[in-house]
Structures are given as structure tokens and as C-alpha cells.
């Protein structure tokens, strides 16, 4: 539960508070628990509601109107052609080959938590919590095309972080193996 909250909120203290609030809410509502799902799923459902409420509040507070010139160009490109003005660079490793490795997802979760606040919010709401574009745009106060730009940047930052840290991790592991 803590990981779920922390990856999406990027803040240890807030994530802890949300977990605590979840338990307190669950205690209050325990008579309503009918055992149709596991206790874990039930608690995760409560946690998700609390988290989305928090994300909505955070989205209203984050300032997203300072568009950089590159972002402005991309926003126009998205509006007209549906693509940004620059292509994503090629991957330095084959990501599909590492989907089965547990360690890769540990790197992925720490990279997600490292995204800048605006990107993290947009990415979390859209990709992890599956909120609709309209809803996210309303909370962030942006146009859909600008949201695509923020999401594209978030994905690129995530990719750069994954490449750096996955490479570092593998180099470290190879060095340890060589030393052994």
C-alpha cells in the first residue's frame, strides 16, 4: 500500500498519511465489508479513492501555465499532426526483454517517483489511475494537446531514467560477478 501511494505521490510523509487514513476509513466502514473481494482488494480500493482525491487537489495547486517554447511548438504539432516535432531516441536496451525481470520494475518504480511534479501528476492520473483526458485537463487546467506534450515528456524522462539506472545496475552486477 505504501509503495502504491509513494510512487504516485512522490512524498514519504504524504504517502504514510494516506495509508493511515485508509486504515482509519476501513475501520469506520468495516461493517460494510461484505467479503465479496479480498481484504487486500477492499483496502486498495479505499486507498485508491483517497489517492485520487489527493491527486486532484495537488493538480489544482500545481502551476502548469508556464509553457516553454519547445512545448508550445509541440502543442501546435500535436494539434495539427498528432505528433511532436522530435522523434523519441532509440532505446539503449530492448525493454521488452526485461519485462520478466523483477529488478527492472524496482528501477521503474524509483524512476516514476523521480519524475517532476507536473509530469508525475499527469502520468499517474492518465496511465496508472486511468482517469479520462477531460478529467485530467479539468484538474490541471490545460488543453488536451498540452496534456499530450506533458505526457510525452514524462515518458521520455522515464525512458532516460530507466536507461541510466538499468545500465548502472547491470554494470554494477557484472562488476560484482567479475570480482567473484
Amino acid at each position, binding site marked *: 500500500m505504501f509503495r502504491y501511494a509513494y510512487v504516485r505521490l512522490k512524498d514519504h510523509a504524504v504517502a504514510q498519511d494516506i495509508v493511515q487514513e485508509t486504515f482509519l476509513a476501513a475501520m469506520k466502514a468495516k461493517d460494510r465489508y461484505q467479503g465479496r473481494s479480498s481484504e487486500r482488494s477492499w483496502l486498495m480500493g479505499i486507498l485508491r479513492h483517497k489517492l485520487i482525491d489527493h491527486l486532484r487537489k495537488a493538480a489544482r495547486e500545481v502551476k502548469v501555465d508556464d509553457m516553454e517554447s519547445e512545448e508550445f511548438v509541440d502543442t501546435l504539432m500535436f494539434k495539427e499532426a498528432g505528433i511532436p516535432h522530435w522523434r523519441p531516441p532509440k532505446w539503449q536496451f530492448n525493454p*521488452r526483454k526485461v519485462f520478466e525481470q523483477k529488478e527492472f520494475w524496482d528501477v521503474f518504480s524509483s524512476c516514476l517517483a523521480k519524475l517532476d511534479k507536473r509530469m508525475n501528476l499527469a502520468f499517474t492520473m492518465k496511465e496508472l489511475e486511468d482517469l479520462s483526458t477531460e478529467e485530467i485537463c479539468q484538474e490541471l487546467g490545460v488543453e488536451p494537446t498540452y496534456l499530450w506534450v506533458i505526457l510525452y515528456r514524462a515518458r521520455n524522462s522515464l525512458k532516460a531514467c530507466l536507461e541510466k539506472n538499468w545500465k548502472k545496475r547491470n554494470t554494477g552486477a557484472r562488476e560484482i560477478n567479475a570480482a567473484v
Partner: protein
Amino acid sequence: MLRCKQVSDALASGKYWELPRRKRIGLRMHVALCVVCGPFNRFIMLMQDMTDHYVKHEQNDPPPPDMKLSEEARKKIREACRQNEATS
């Protein structure tokens, strides 16, 4: 035949595997062949797959040590629950 803008819009509004089957086939073909939007949209599809795998991993595998609640935080939550039970 789908246009680049239609493909990008479809991928931007939802995950590609949630699209109707017929639309999905046309979209995949376009993305595989198109030199204009192909690299961008292949990247988007890969990242959507990756995030989906991550969510599954998150549900099934234990968290890494740096993403676990500290013993102190657990105590604090237990204490808050006890207090809450005592007052209700």
C-alpha cells in the same frame, strides 16, 4: 486507411488494447509501416505496455526495501488505529 492524426488521437485518448479489434488492426498496421508517426506511436504503445506490466507487478510482487513503510511509521499507524477504536 487511418491518418497519422487519427492514430495518435486514438492512442492519446486510451490504451491501444482497449480499442475495438477492427480499429486495433488498422492502427497496428499504420504504426508498423508509417515513417512519419511510426517511431513516435511505437514508443507510446511500448510505454503503455510497460506501464501495464508495472501495474501487474505492483499488484503481485513485494515492494523493494526502500519502498516499504518504516517500523516507526507502522507503529504510528497502529497507534492511530488503536486511538480511533478507543474513541468510537
